[in-house]
């Protein structure tokens, strides 16, 4: 991982980044406020005043900090707000962090860039929480791969270089994939066949596997892989977006059981995973199981029941015409079961969901 991934580093920076950040010439860019060559100042902060404070908190001698990638997502912000009361929090995300608490240091750049290393060099990173996983069905495969696989490889490389003792990766139960032959409750040992019918999530499976190989190759780092089921709440992920549709599609004659988990329960699980001594792979199943139809009924949705022989091609076409953001293979999630057994998380992490099933489901409404 360390030597081989040295190669893609430079090409990686050349990939088109949707943010207005310049690609290579950082120093001339208006976003980069610090032309200062000192590594600790190479971090980009929103304004000059905050930068001074940022520099102060990211001295190598500072208190050990938690580095959160993808901090500006809804889940990342929730986690940061939860963690910054307990210790320093550093975030990397190319998006801005509106309403950021003052003691959270946010580096606004793409995690694939070399500056990520400077963050490691400058701050005393005690743990990395990797939430910065991209799953945008419209983005190209190349973008997905460089972001989710190459970017993550680099992150792991920096972790070994700066001997960070803890890594928490937010994978997903989707890596198991919905299949007709799935056991009702998949354990952590189940094969990761999520990509066999949906190549769009191949890189998510690779990311999980990268984290697994890191777990074995670097026993000095406590690696935790969390595989939550569908996260609901104010998050803008596929399941929450699906449940916010006024007329979500279901497949005629199919009504699988689904598991959902509240975003705040995921945050608590990450906190539990950050405790020293915890390592391993943990499924997070949430408060219970519910048939999809009854979940939709609870939200007052009127599902559009589409016969499954035509659903795939129709949805595929709608997706190509940009009339929907759901790619056709995701229909398997409303067709087959993909549920997990989280008894290991409950025993080892000492975690259990606090939100009831009802509150978890209704969260897509309240916080949207």
């Amino acid at each position: 991982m360390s030597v081989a991934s040295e190669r893609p580093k430079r090409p990686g920076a050349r990939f088109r980044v949707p943010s207005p950040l310049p690609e290579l010439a950082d120093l001339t860019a208006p976003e980069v406020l610090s032309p200062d060559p000192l590594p600790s100042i190479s971090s980009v902060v929103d304004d000059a005043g905050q930068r001074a404070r940022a520099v102060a908190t990211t001295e190598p001698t500072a208190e050990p900090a938690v580095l959160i990638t993808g901090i500006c997502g809804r889940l990342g912000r929730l986690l940061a707000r939860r963690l910054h009361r307990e210790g320093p929090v550093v975030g990397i995300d190319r998006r801005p962090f509106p309403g950021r608490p003052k003691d959270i240091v946010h580096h606004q750049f793409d995690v694939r860039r070399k500056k990520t290393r400077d963050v490691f060099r400058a701050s005393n990173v005690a743990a990395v929480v990797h939430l910065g996983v991209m799953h945008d069905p419209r983005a190209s495969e190349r973008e997905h791969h460089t972001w989710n696989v190459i970017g993550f490889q680099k992150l792991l490389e920096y972790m070994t270089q700066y001997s960070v003792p803890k890594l928490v990766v937010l994978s997903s139960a989707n890596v198991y994939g919905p299949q007709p032959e799935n056991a009702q409750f998949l354990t952590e040992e189940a094969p990761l066949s999520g990509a066999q019918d949906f190549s769009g999530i191949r890189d998510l499976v690779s990311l999980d596997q990268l984290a697994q190989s890191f777990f074995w190759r670097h026993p000095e780092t406590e690696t935790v892989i969390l595989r939550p089921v569908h996260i609901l709440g104010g998050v803008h992920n596929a399941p929450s977006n699906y449940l916010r549709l006024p007329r979500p599609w279901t497949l005629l004659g199919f009504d699988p059981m689904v598991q959902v988990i509240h975003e705040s329960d995921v945050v608590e699980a990450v906190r539990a995973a950050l405790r020293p001594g915890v390592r391993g792979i943990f499924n997070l199943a949430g408060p219970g199981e519910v048939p999809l139809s009854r979940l939709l009924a609870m939200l007052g949705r009127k599902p559009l029941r589409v016969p499954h022989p035509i659903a795939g091609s129709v949805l595929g076409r709608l997706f190509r015409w940009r009339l929907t953001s759901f790619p056709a293979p995701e229909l398997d999630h409303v067709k087959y079961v993909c549920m997990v057994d989280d008894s290991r998380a409950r025993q080892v992490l000492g975690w259990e969901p606090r939100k009831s099933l009802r509150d978890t489901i209704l969260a897509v409404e309240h916080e949207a």
Partner: protein
Amino acid sequence: MASTPPAVPTAGHGYALSPVGEQIMALGERLLGEDLRGRLARISFHGNEFGVDRFGFDPNVARYALLFATFLHRMYFRTEVHDIHRVPQGRVMLIANHSGQLPFDGFAIGASMVLDAEPPRMVRSMVERWVQTLPFFSQLFQRCGQIVGVPENCERLLEMEEAILVFPEGTRGISKTFDQRYQLADFGLGFMRLALATHCPIVPVALVGAEEQYINLHDAKTVAKVIGAPTAPVIPQWFIPGLQLPLPVRYRLYFGEPMTFSGDPDDDDAVIEEKVWVVKATIQSMLNRGLKERKGLFW
């Protein structure tokens, strides 16, 4: 697992029992002379606020299936049930011969466990994975407490002290041609490994009668492969109007003495096979005895 008290058909959370459904059930109960809802209420059920258990079993949906099963069991096939008291409480595996082209044998065994066993029990049968890809059936089977036939599910349910119905012959058994009737096909070994791993008693079950309900002359394997189904039986009576229904043969259902096995669940196939062979031989001899006792096909 949410373990609410076993009071069943009070579906909480807006899933009130539909008045039409209640009327259908009341009418069915009067015609069949059975207290179906009363017996369903007595089965052990761990439901959540959505009225389902972790496997998607919903007694309020399953009762319609039970109504149909009761009709088949009591009126259509007029099943004779022998020695059902031998089924022990707690975890148990019912190992039965599979026959009859369509799985009415599962209905009969399931119905007799609810209607004839004391206390009534819901049998969870291991359903062919292929059924999960069929619209409506996948949904119906799940709501009726039937589960995808993978070992993990079976093990989990046995640990929940449920009764599992396994047809170890699988599709090889159900699609037997007429000349092979009552000759058990090869048994899978998985059930024995699970029984050993979970220390679960095995009750051999023999069903006599179902082989004659449809006369299968040939198993068209090529056709089955083309349409993606496990079997494609050639049944001439299906082309005669009115004979799509199974012939109203009489079922005879025999429950054997519980058998317990011990050993290493990960043992060699050969070792497991010997144990499976004991079960298979028991079922075969029960079948033979049942056939000998049988005076007629339809009465």
